[in-house]
């Protein structure tokens, strides 16, 4: 079918077979390989992107269902803050050593950004619960949790002012 959607701020027109998963559409059709595939049972969260502002496992959604939506992937995240700089959540992962091999990282960051959007000051237990759908085999999660807390604070810094 023919699709029209917004991906990372750009309008995209493309056609794809009806059964194409959103993750395959992003990776294979659009070449946005930052979104990863870590499982075939929707358990790992490596594929998380935002669809109309919500964190979605893109392996569980058909590309067709995203027709007419706004999709944001890890490649487009930094630009949402209006410059070339990293998004505050990306910077927090860098500063807190929240990544090792980097494979889970796009899904972790996209999950964290959506979560932090309405949790300015989560505690550690909250963050651990919020990451329930994302697997990381490298970091033992400790520095990811620290990253999410720092990233949430940075995203909300100055908002009240």
């Amino acid at each position, binding site marked *: 079918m023919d699709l029209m959607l917004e991906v990372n701020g750009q309008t995209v027109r493309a056609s794809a077979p009806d059964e194409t998963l959103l993750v395959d559409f992003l990776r294979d059709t659009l070449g946005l390989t930052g979104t990863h595939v870590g499982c075939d049972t929707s358990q790992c969260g*490596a594929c998380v992107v935002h669809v109309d502002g919500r964190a979605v496992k893109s392996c569980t959604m058909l590309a067709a269902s995203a027709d007419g939506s706004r999709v944001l992937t890890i490649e487009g995240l930094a630009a949402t803050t209006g410059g070339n700089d990293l998004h505050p959540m990306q910077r927090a992962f860098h500063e807190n050593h929240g990544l*090792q091999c980097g494979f889970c990282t796009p899904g972790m960051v996209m999950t964290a950004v959506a979560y932090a959007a309405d949790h300015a000051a989560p505690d550690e237990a909250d963050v651990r619960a919020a990451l329930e759908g994302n697997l990381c085999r490298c970091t*033992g999660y400790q520095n990811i949790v620290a990253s999410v807390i720092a990233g949430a604070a940075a995203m909300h810094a100055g908002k009240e002012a």
Partner: protein
Amino acid sequence: MLDNLPANPTGIGASILRKEDRRFLTGRGNYVADLKRPGMTFGVFVRSPHAHASLGAIDTEAARVVPGVLAVLTGADLAADEVGGIPCGWGITGRDGQPMKEPAHPALALGKVRYVGDAVAFVVAETAEAARQAADVVEVAYDVLPSVVNVLDAVRPDAPVLFDEAPGNLCCDWEMGDRAAVDAAFAGAAHVARLSLVNNRLVGNPMEPRAAVAEYDPAGDRTTLWTTSQFPHVVRLLMGNFVLKIPQHKLRVVAPDVGGGFGVKQFHYAEEAVVTWAARRLGRAVKWVCERSEGFISDAHGRDHVTEAEMALDETGKFLALRVSTLANMGGYLSTFGPNIPTNLYAPLLAGVYTTPAIHCEVKCVFTNTVPVDAYRGAGRPEATFVLERLVDVCAAELGMDRIAIRRRNMITADAYPYQTPVMVQYDSGDPVGCMDRALEIADWAGFPARREAAARRGVYRGIGISTYIEACGLAPSRIAIRLGARGGLYESAAIRVHPTGHVTALMGTHSHGQGHETTFAQIVSEKLGVPVENVDIVFGDTDRVQFGMGTYGSRSLVVGGTALSKAADKIILKGRKIAAHQMEAAIDDVVFEGGTFRVAGTDRTRSFEEISLSAYVPADFPLEILEPGLEEQAFYDPVNFTYPGGAHIAEVEIDRETGSVRLVSYVAVDDVGTVINPMIVAGQLHGGIVQGVGQALCENAAYDEGSGQLVAGSFMDYCMPRADMMPRMHVETHNTRCSHTDLGTKGCGEMGTIGSPAAVTNAIVNALSGLGITHVDMPASPNRIWRVMQTAQLPQAAE
């Protein structure tokens, strides 16, 4: 100047942020699954649904007519093309002096399939979808045979036999240590403590599934394989030389960004050879990406031991002798390091941090109808540590001794190094007592009884456990390894290319897949050459760019590769001093190199590193009579000994009396890693390793169904991976002694977490349940298992 800061802000000891982060954080990593090549096709494997079967006809007709299908290849095609079997990298020798049984391992099954997942055909098509459809309609005639998945069953006389040449399914009956000395010590011992245990089978599950892309360029007769590998040069050697017979200079193997390895990606897999062979046959690029459920039945698994252990003690709790007998599962074929793991990487660790004077270990390596078993983070050393540290607790309980007191009574003291163990290895350095004391303090071991009482008032069992351990890593001195059966050397190589501007490219034979080499190795160059890390790039993972290397496993990159890098830097400095001496008209011995500057000692005559670099390439004022122009040096380093990191880990758990569910409430690790290059990265390695070990202790279990030979835990739905909410905040710190034989004093830190933690957690669980008379619990401590253990313990004892 602040003396608590390293002199060089990007040198050794600085927690600088990682240079590699940016591409991963912005989605610009370059993993194998991301690759697209011109005219690329897609391959799918057809795998056996049976654990053991004779292979009949393979009917490929229906598959071939699926639109887009290019080829359906089977073992017969491989044989016709004279493709060799997948080689094993180690050949161990049994106690009878006979070599291990080493049956052929065809890349696609021939004659028989030997585990669920054994590959029988490979379908290549224009699209992945077409390849999948066609793979579904390949008709394979199987004549199903009885199968065996458990080592205890496999060695029974009536067990189904996998290979005619390996009667009793025995690959090798191996031993290490002095049996007579151990027997004598047991005969005279005041007390003997015994323990039977199982070390549960695990799936490594790096988050990036395996993948391969291969391409053939007829113009240059060049073949390229991109693969998710921890050791591209070894894949080139094994696959090129033994399997596909491609000359080394015509074969390029690239391991680009790799999403975690943990050992799973340090083997030469059949899939790599099949994909490369298919690409050459078809003259088209071929891509294969493993699905996760396919990975469960094709990635080499880890652990899977059944062990009997006995300690002989005197009446004061002194260890006199240790006897260990283990059945180790090899799976359906020998994987690259398979037979080395439960033997050479296991028995030498049974001395632990103790002065046990006599040790004997016998290991039977056993074939079963399961996925091949090989190294998984820690590899042999977690298994040894689990045996020993559990047994020490059993000894303490039986003698009525305190668990810390019995460790102290037997521990090697800091002044006893170098320390020769009775199982081959000589520890160069360490301070296990110091690590233990610091861990006891941080974990407030002394305050535990009060916490236990408070928990009891809430109706919860609380336990504390310790594991004091050592590991041998930095694999390995080639001479020792080859004597033990290695079919290759275990040195490492580094080359430093100084550009005319003084910028540096370092080419490493190791491979980074999460460890942060691009940062750590740049820090070493920064320290040695006085250049900032921004001016240093680290290159690895491409056999066309990097000279040679054995790759990354066994916590070897920093200790072996880092030492090679340090030696290459020393050669650069020496050449630079020669150039500087010429220019400043001084004797070479009078020229020193400090902080990036060449100086005539005791004068203010200097040349900067950049000036010397430039003159090496613009040799106007250069001693061309005695020195070649250019500034590039290479070093190979073969270690003189293993390194021996170790430490003390303390876990505290709470167990729900109703459900048996175990909650880890505190975790403390104090480890001796030798010289630390980047403390932030070391802490990250420890965190990750500890959680993998906690996963083994609490929830991970690659269970097979005994009747059908099916892997029951075949996806993330059934195989429990640790998630963020399983862990408390860990406390990790280091208590370091310098390694005496690596240039920088480093010992390695990649595997310590998985080695120390399973015993610490299990000892805590047994301690929590000790009031019920429970002395051992096997891993994983699932609620179901713990609940059953508690029920059995609480049953009234039958009347005598």
